[in-house]
């Protein structure tokens, strides 16, 4: 802690007495590489061990999602939103639903909001577990991978029981969620949340005071406040640099203004601070989930889906009994149109501000659906953080910026 935060990076460069002095080497990292967190390619120009320049090349997972949205239509695109940031599928669903509900002017019932908050915070925990596990294994702490994936398996069991699939659940609909949380699922979530804080403490015991973890992360990838804002960073990357900005507080959605939680903010803006911010966010997410569970008990029996038949499917029992509901079902499935106009709906995802800019011309297919992915901004910041540093710092920086190529490339 008393060490100077400015280290001499020229020590990694080739010494002037060395015959190779002044020769730069081009190193190609990726697109297939264990430490690039997906298919990211980095063209690194090296002077010895010091990185002189880094150029990220993205697009190796570009699947044409924005075009797909225009082709498929509003409803069918929910399935594709899961696969954007695939470590937190339900958060992506909720972001898209938020944008569509703004366009439609739809209000979600209380229970629907509570279930969404619960699913979003569980997804945030899952995403931060991936961050911790993969960054740990990249920096050598192999045990972290297994511990974090073990916790993720418990989350998978919950989500499997509730939504029917471990990941890529697609459980959110316009107007709420697909089905209600029943008592057994609620009990399982409570059991998970009861044992989870002890696990976070265990992770911290392994890493936070660990000399190696500290040395590899402290003073590495320092991002100042002005840099973070100029590079359009949001989420833990912005908060690690001291900017207290969280969309759940600044522009609350889904009832977040009524929940009691804290937003962790860093001071120095290095990888270590971003690590601490994310670990604390896991704890705060647990806190929010517990409050959401209490509200689930209170709102038992309430609606979890808005009853607007222009956008929300009727329950099957009603559909089979009533002609009118059958017509609604038919209309929604084949041709659900949203009013003309544009809207931007954003949530605070685990990587930052995940937003959907949707432009409608009044038909069932969007005119434009732009996905504002926080991961793209995170990748963009890699050269700023990594220039002049040692090659081994690159792995720490990439891990701490935490992006998922599914949403970077869309």
């Amino acid at each position, binding site marked *: 802690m008393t060490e100077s935060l400015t280290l001499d990076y020229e020590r990694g460069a080739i010494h002037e007495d060395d015959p190779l002095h002044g020769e730069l080497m081009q190193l190609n990292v990726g697109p297939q*590489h264990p430490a690039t967190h997906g298919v990211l390619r980095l063209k690194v120009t090296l002077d010895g061990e010091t990185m002189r320049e880094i150029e990220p090349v993205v697009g190796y*997972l570009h*699947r044409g999602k924005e075009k*797909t949205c225009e082709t498929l239509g509003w409803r069918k695109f929910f399935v*594709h939103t899961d696969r954007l940031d695939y470590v937190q599928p339900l958060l992506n669903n909720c972001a898209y639903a938020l944008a569509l509900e703004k366009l439609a002017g739809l209000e979600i019932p209380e229970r629907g909001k509570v279930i969404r908050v619960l699913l979003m915070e569980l997804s945030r925990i899952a995403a931060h577990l991936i961050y911790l596990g993969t960054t740990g294994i990249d920096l050598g702490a192999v045990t972290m991978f297994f511990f974090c994936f073990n916790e993720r398996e418990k989350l998978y069991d919950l989500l499997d029981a509730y939504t029917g699939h471990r*990941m890529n659940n697609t459980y959110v609909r316009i107007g709420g969620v697909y089905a209600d949380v029943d008592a057994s699922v609620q009990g399982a979530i409570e059991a998970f949340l009861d044992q989870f804080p002890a696990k976070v403490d265990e992770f911290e015991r392994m890493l936070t005071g660990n000399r190696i973890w500290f040395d590899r992360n402290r003073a590495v990838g320092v991002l100042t406040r002005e840099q973070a804002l100029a590079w359009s960073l949001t989420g833990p990357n912005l908060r690690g640099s001291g900017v207290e900005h969280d969309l759940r507080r600044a522009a609350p959605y889904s009832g977040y203004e009524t929940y009691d939680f804290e937003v962790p903010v860093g001071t120095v803006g290095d990888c270590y601070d971003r690590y601490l911010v994310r670990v604390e966010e896991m704890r705060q997410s647990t806190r929010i989930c517990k409050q959401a569970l209490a509200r689930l008990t209170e709102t038992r029996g309430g609606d979890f889906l808005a009853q607007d038949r222009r956008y929300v499917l009727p329950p099957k029992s009603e559909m089979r009994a009533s002609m009118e509901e059958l017509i609604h079902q038919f209309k929604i499935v084949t041709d659900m149109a949203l009013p003309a106009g544009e809207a931007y709906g954003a949530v605070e995802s685990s990587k930052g501000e995940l937003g959907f800019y949707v432009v409608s011309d009044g038909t069932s297919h969007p005119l434009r659906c732009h996905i504002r992915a926080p991961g793209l901004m995170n990748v963009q910041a890699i050269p700023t953080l990594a220039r002049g540093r040692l090659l081994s710092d690159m792995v720490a920086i990439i891990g701490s910026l935490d992006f998922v190529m*599914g949403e970077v490339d869309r």
Partner: protein
Amino acid sequence: MGSLNPAGASGPDGGFFATKADWLVNWGRKNSLWPMPLGLSCCGIELMAMIGPRFDIARFGAEAARFSPRQCDLLIVAGTLTWKMAEACRTIYDQMPDPKWVIAMGVCSSSGGMYDSYAVVQGVDMLMPVDVYVPGCPPRPDAVIDALLKLQKKIERERPVELLLGGDNTDEGAGTRTSTYAPNKAVATTRSHEVLPADESPGPA
């Protein structure tokens, strides 16, 4: 080899020695399949879960997931392959030494999945022969382990020693590596360095 005469036999059992040696070689190969995890997208997360503690692919001898293709024999294409990534993927396949097998994990690598768009390869078997296809989006790790077991059964049917001693491979499964599903015969069974043959035109979609 005298009365045992393994070479030149064209029946299902090509001689006692070759059969036993084949069994031994196949036993060794199938129980030490070292995966090359080509984790491209969401299936990559389930692949990591499979290597993780609960599903534990180490039980099947497949835990040594080396990230260098030179040290692997099982390429698991987990995720969506785009045309931008296609060359890198084919290069990885080419760099793997023989014998090698390919599992197409998930629907994206089996057939393009839910992405019938301008940027996605409609199935990794357009570029390389695939041994086992695993449907699912993503498939459960159990499903991929099932695929591994099916691949092990497939490996059991191979006859590398018999081929070495001069047998022919007219029988099904005798040391061949071709894909069992070949929509474009000229494309899917090539093992050359061309991504696609220059003069064959499979046509759009």
